[in-house]
């Protein structure tokens, strides 16, 4: 079982760092078009902020901050967002995952740009949810055995 860390320095640092790291995850997701980064890395950083919280404040904080079934649903929604972006391209008259035919009021080139953003958001959701639910379960105490 992961206990609350005794040091107030660690706790304060994590309290300050967590929102900044989550903001950085959003930056990595949105700026992946221009620099190294993208949905996968953003998802891992987002998931890692919850692990950081558990390491500083004890595993129990995750029971208050995370609803695991909802987290699973969010991850599934991420994968679905990816697949549906592909289907939307088909609905626009293209092939599966052809973002240039997405029904958006922009040029086909811009539509591909936004299509990439949509699917990267889906990847972020899927990866972050996977990491969080895995850590929630692994950090749990095996009580009723």
């Amino acid at each position: 079982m992961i206990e609350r860390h005794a040091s107030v320095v660690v706790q304060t640092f994590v309290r300050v760092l967590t929102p900044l790291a989550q903001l950085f995850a959003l930056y990595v997701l949105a700026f992946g078009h221009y620099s190294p980064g993208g949905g996968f890395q953003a998802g891992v950083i987002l998931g890692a902020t919850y692990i950081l919280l558990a390491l500083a404040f004890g595993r129990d904080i995750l029971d208050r901050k995370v609803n695991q079934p909802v987290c699973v649903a969010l991850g599934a929604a991420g994968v679905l967002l990816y697949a549906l972006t592909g289907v939307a391209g088909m609905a626009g008259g293209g092939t599966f995952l052809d973002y240039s035919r997405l029904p958006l009021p922009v040029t086909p080139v811009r539509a591909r740009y936004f299509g990439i953003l949509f699917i990267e958001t889906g990847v972020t959701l899927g990866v972050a949810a996977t990491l969080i639910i895995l850590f929630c379960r692994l950090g749990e105490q095996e009580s009723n055995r």
Partner: protein
Amino acid sequence: MSELILAGLLVLLVLLAVVAVRAPDLLLAVITLGAYGFVMSLIWAVMGALDVAFTEAVVGAGATTVLFLAALLRTSRRRSPAASPLRWVALAVALGTGGAVLGVTSGLPRWGDPTSAPATHVSPRYLVRTLSETATPNAVTSVLADYRGYDTLVETTVIFTAGLGCWLLLTPRRR
């Protein structure tokens, strides 16, 4: 110069790998494995593969280490004292595979060779057209998410499904 840094990092990588495999304390092994991931990410960065370096840093050095640590908390940090009866078979397989990989290394193109097969097939097309076709300057992102969208879709599905499977397996049983 970068070859020299690369050689140093690769030696460090081998040392860390040996420690991770041989450490009697599994906590030491896990931390060493995290360091291995970090050195690996430095190697990718020196080679110019920044997207891979980024992923290796967050996954190899960060997430896997923490997941292994959490797994150790639920089990034990001591390695099993009983020697595996298959250890000589394992040694033979490891030496054979390593030898085979070393043997075919000479057939690989040199690092950064612009005339190699991977660099002359579809890569130039992606690099030239990524901006005009997808408005995305980072070709790694446009290849992963657009040109090779199928691969990334299935990858994401695999990650999520594997995580969901572990989550379900570890669900506490109610009496």
